[in-house]
């Protein structure tokens, strides 16, 4: 059963930044890109490194340890050593507030 969760301070995020959140026992990252807000799991699918320590540029998050890359909009693994996709979550905005479905 999923639930829409309000993202604290999501409305204040600048383009090109990311925000780590905890919701319903999950650790997620909210990204603000040129094309809007997106959300993914926080752990790399390769060896579970913390992607909040990674390099985020345009629509791509890169693992800080092995440089596997993921598209934050689709979760697709873009380059080795990442091969499994990152789980993504729907995000919507309402009256300036940001919500993620967990």
């Amino acid at each position: 059963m999923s639930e829409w969760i309000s993202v604290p301070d999501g409305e204040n995020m600048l383009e090109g930044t990311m925000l780590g959140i905890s919701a319903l026992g999950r650790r997620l990252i909210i990204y603000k890109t040129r094309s809007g807000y997106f959300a993914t799991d926080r752990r790399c699918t390769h060896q579970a490194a913390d992607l909040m320590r990674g390099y985020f540029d345009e629509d791509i998050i890169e693992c800080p340890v092995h440089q596997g890359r993921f598209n934050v909009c689709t979760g697709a693994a873009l380059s080795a050593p990442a091969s499994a996709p990152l789980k993504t979550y729907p995000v919507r905005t309402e009256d300036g507030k940001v919500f993620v479905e967990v």
Partner: protein
Amino acid sequence: MTTADDNPDLADDPFDAWYAPSIDRGTLRALMRRTNRQGLLHVGIWLLLCIATGYVVALTRHTLWVWPAMLLYGGVLCFAYAASHECAHGTAFKTRWLNETIFWFTSLVFIEEPLYRRYSHAGHHTHTWFNELDPQKPYGNPMTLTHYLSGTFGLTFYFDAVRQLIRHSRGRFTPQELEFLPPSEIRTAIINSRLMSACYAALLLGGIAFQSPWPFILYFIPRFLGGCIVTLYINTQHMCMAEDLYDHRQTTRSIKCGWLGRLLYWNMNYHIEHHLYPAVPFHALPELNRSIGDQLPPPLNGVVAANADILKAISRQRTEPRFNLSRAN
């Protein structure tokens, strides 16, 4: 309950076991920034040096001077290793296709299949200098002089690289290789290995068929001779350091280098810094060193001094097999 936790680390991050120096997160993010300029500059200068030293080989080809000329040219050529390594991390260029193109080209020069290299190098960063776990740990303590000489002066590395390429072309991988190369990537690794083998075979057979010396004096022999020069640099990374520790300060070594060494080696003399933060591109490593250098052991004074230190340690390991060059000693 939803909470923002931008700053706190994941409680069970598997990589938290490793020593990490203190550095401001904003500074670190700024250091991770990518650019094409520095990568293009390094590749451009490397290619110009290859052309210049290769021209000397051509000029001296009918004299005995061709041998030192091939050593010099081969030494420069084999620094393809450094570009290939940076591209394996994906940090050499901001533009991805540029990174992957240079990765392929320099891996071809250095004789390392790029996809396999990327996975095995990821394993090296996961398990840096852990016996049985680090896929890029070809030697351990105690070292012997035979290990050092055969590993450094090309024979072992060159023939191992060729053997591995042939094995991968035939679709044969060792159980250890299959631990870090996922099944979904094996087909690509085999195709890459076959393409690379075809390139070397065409060069070799072309040289024989047309009775041309060029493939031999501009690739095969210099690649063989020059390998020892880059290997002297590679030796400084981990050789005779402590093993099986979650602390890059003790398992890894940084050295000082002159401008030419730093240029050809793509700043990998800052090797502790590179292992601590592999997402920081090569061109930002001096700046990273300025931020955290006071928390790291002081670098050794150059590649010759580091290799001399290694040779002294090898001598000492004959009587003290557990001796290593970690600064904790």
